[in-house]
């Protein structure tokens, strides 16, 4: 169990910068989610922490020990950092037990076999010990990969899109099971995802990335309630964006005013309003374009003065053709443009 920290890390591929000056910390025993779209550099960060790539600037420390700096990289095999790959990368020629035992080669044979079985039991797959990877389902492979990475008791564990290859039901189930295992072992965890729900549900801390930069590093609640930028707000769910000028300490939108006391009057600004921060009541001047089911909610498209927004409202609310709109201040943010 160790703290992992990156300080001013830079990395480029073929002269295009993949990471600019990334600084973040994964505190001991906590689960940190790196959230961002593909190409945001989140997988690169994992590979750098694992030592599979070298940094061009900045440094990486694990428990205070310098493991990566320009020109010197502690070899991956000496870092004691576990990793679960997106495709799980189980060894195809070894069965489940032998896969889990692979990192336990310092132990004696009997001890090693016993430990491997204990880990298989922990992820609920003891009965699959002698199955080969091609005989295992996607979810089973993921759990074997997790057990394999945790078995050598790494200082930290890295998960690359751990739930992306799985269907929706299995995904939530496996996410909870994985978190429970990680919490039990109190292993410092960094996982990469492009799914806001995964990140919000699973992480103690969130790091929101875009185009190789950290947009925000915060606890999930804080990141959701106080986004640092328009992009940071958009990373955690659908938002409506509106451009305008600050007048009387507020930004006026076709759907209502948003408080912007922190900005000077007359400057141009941008508002981000979460779709779930719009309350609709029947009868008003805002036209309803369409209503579509969206899980437990309905996704409603509304139009006013030629501007179209999306609202997430409780399902099957009778709205009619026109509504009045209230913007909840907790889900509406104004940033200077």
């Amino acid at each position, binding site marked *: 169990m160790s703290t992992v920290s990156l300080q001013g890390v830079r990395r480029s591929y073929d002269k295009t910068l993949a990471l600019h000056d990334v600084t973040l910390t994964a505190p001991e025993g906590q689960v940190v989610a790196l959230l961002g779209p593909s190409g945001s550099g989140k997988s690169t960060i994992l590979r750098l922490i*694992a*030592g*599979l790539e*070298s940094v061009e600037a900045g440094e990486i420390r694990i428990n205070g*020990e*310098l493991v990566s700096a320009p*020109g*010197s*990289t*502690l*070899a*991956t*095999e*000496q*870092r*004691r*950092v*576990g*990793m679960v*790959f997106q*495709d799980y*990368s*189980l*060894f*195809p*020629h070894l069965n489940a037990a032998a896969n889990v035992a*692979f*990192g336990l*080669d310092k132990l004696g044979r009997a001890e090693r076999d016993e430990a491997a079985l204990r880990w298989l039991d922990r992820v609920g797959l003891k009965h699959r010990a002698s199955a080969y990877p091609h005989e295992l389902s996607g979810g089973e492979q993921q759990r074997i990969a997790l057990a*394999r*990475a945790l078995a*050598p008791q*790494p200082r930290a564990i*890295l998960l690359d899109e751990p739930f992306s290859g799985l269907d929706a039901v299995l995904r939530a189930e496996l996410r909870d099971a994985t978190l429970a295992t990680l919490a039990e072992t109190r292993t410092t965890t960094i996982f990469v995802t492009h799914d806001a729900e995964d990140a919000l549900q699973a992480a103690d801390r969130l790091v929101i990335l875009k185009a190789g930069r950290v947009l925000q590093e915060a606890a999930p609640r804080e990141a959701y309630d106080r986004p640092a930028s328009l992009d940071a707000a958009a990373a955690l769910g659908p938002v409506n964006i509106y451009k305008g000028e600050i007048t009387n300490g507020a930004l006026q939108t076709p759907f209502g005013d948003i408080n912007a006391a922190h900005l000077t009057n007359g400057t141009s600004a941008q508002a981000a309003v979460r779709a779930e921060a719009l309350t609709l009541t029947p009868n008003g001047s805002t036209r309803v374009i369409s209503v579509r089911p969206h899980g437990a909610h309905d996704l409603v498209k509304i139009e006013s003065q030629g501007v179209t927004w999306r609202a997430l409202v409780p399902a099957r609310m009778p709205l009619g053709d026109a509504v009045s709109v209230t913007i909840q201040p907790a889900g509406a943010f104004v940033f200077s443009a």
Partner: protein
Amino acid sequence: MSVATAHTRTRGVQIDGVAVAAALATFVCAAPAIAVIALAFAPGAEGATFAGDLLRDGALGTLALVLAGGGGAIVFGATAAWFVSLCRFPGRGVFEWLLVIPLAAPSYVLAYSYASFSWAGGWSPIEVRGFWGAAFVYAVGLYPYVYLSARAAFASQSACALEAARSLGVGPLKLFWRVALPLARPGIVAGAALALMEIAADYGAAQHFGLTTLSTAIFRAWYAHQSLHGAIQISAALLLAALVFLMIERRARGRAAYGGGSSRWRPLPRYQLSALPAALATIFCIALIVFGAILPLAWLARLAWLHANIGDVAPALINSLVLAAVGVVLTLALAAAIASAARRSTNIGKASLFAAGMGYAAPGAVIAMGALAMFSLAREWGWIGGLGSALALFALFWTYAARFAAAGVGPIDAGLARLSKGLDASARTLGAGPWRRFAEIDLPIAMPSLAAAALILFVEILKELPATLILRPFNFDTLAVKAYSYASDERLLEAAAPALLIFLAGLAPIVLLARSIDRTRAGAR
């Protein structure tokens, strides 16, 4: 853990290792061929006229054999492929893989078997000899090259195109001519180019049937006229022909790859042949297998049983095994370097792949003359002494490596494809160092492919005749050389035992090939 000692440089060293090995492989594979071309154009005073005559006669002889033998192989191979891919008749499933068996025997083994079967106290009413004898041996021995690639081409054809034609009322024969054959043409051409390459490269059969070809002309220039320069010039002409075939094959393969790219793929519809055509198809396939493999094999077995001189064959067998074993290790290392470099698709990787392809296309006699030329140049420049036994063996292994590296690249590449970067990275995060990763991940996963490559190379080297004949140390006989020298002395009865052993060894990789055909039969993707 102190930072200073724990840090290792991650870039540089490993990448260079493969690149250096690939550069070496490129040099090994390309040097003999380049030496042949360079020396052929160097001014040489001696023997210009006779080389010109030999060159012309050899070229004409090779051309005639390529047309007659190659034509037969193409007709046999394409027809057989059409039958097993698109028709239904008794025995089809068995013929599908049995039809490749003739690949087990090199042409000279078939030639010795048929020669003894039809003249020296044999049972055949028809004599297999001279030009038509050679053409027959090439046709029944080499049709599998055409069969294999034509079958692959037929098998990958879109069922939709064929069904569309059938719905327009096209019968089986017309379907073959107007739809299936044009679609499969690139595949047939690619296979034909390989068969023609083999005919042009063959020395043993042409020599035994007393024909003048480019291959036999090289030997005549070198042994009868003692002219290295003349032999080199003829070699250059043969190399040129081989490279033309290689280019045809590459182009056709490139085009064949587009033929089967239909996204709507269904098992091919097969025609149920009616009684008479079905019987003819069955007889045709049986005849190919009997004449290409069973008859010559059985005849050699009978002769060997009656006339084998074990005391004489045993040393040659041991020599062959040792030569092939050492040759496999060297060639496999080279092929592994080429395959790993090629997977990175760097320039050196492409260069090494090209050089290996050139070496593989070049006939053994040509590569051997190239090696000989290189070593005689080295001697002229005072780098080495005379061509002693050790040096001759070195030259021989060099020739094997240059000639066969490409045959190992394919299987090794298939093995490397199973190794993902993710597996390597996984092993590293689990604390495995380079040696453990190699021994416990890379090697076990790639092992089946490596074993297949080793088997193929072992048999190729075991069968090799012309280069071994030219470069072997004095009095060092292999099975191939033994069979050849008995046959040259018209002692065909005694040639049977070594020829049979070569045939049997050749069966091993063919059985592997047949098994893979069984797994990938048309209609099961």
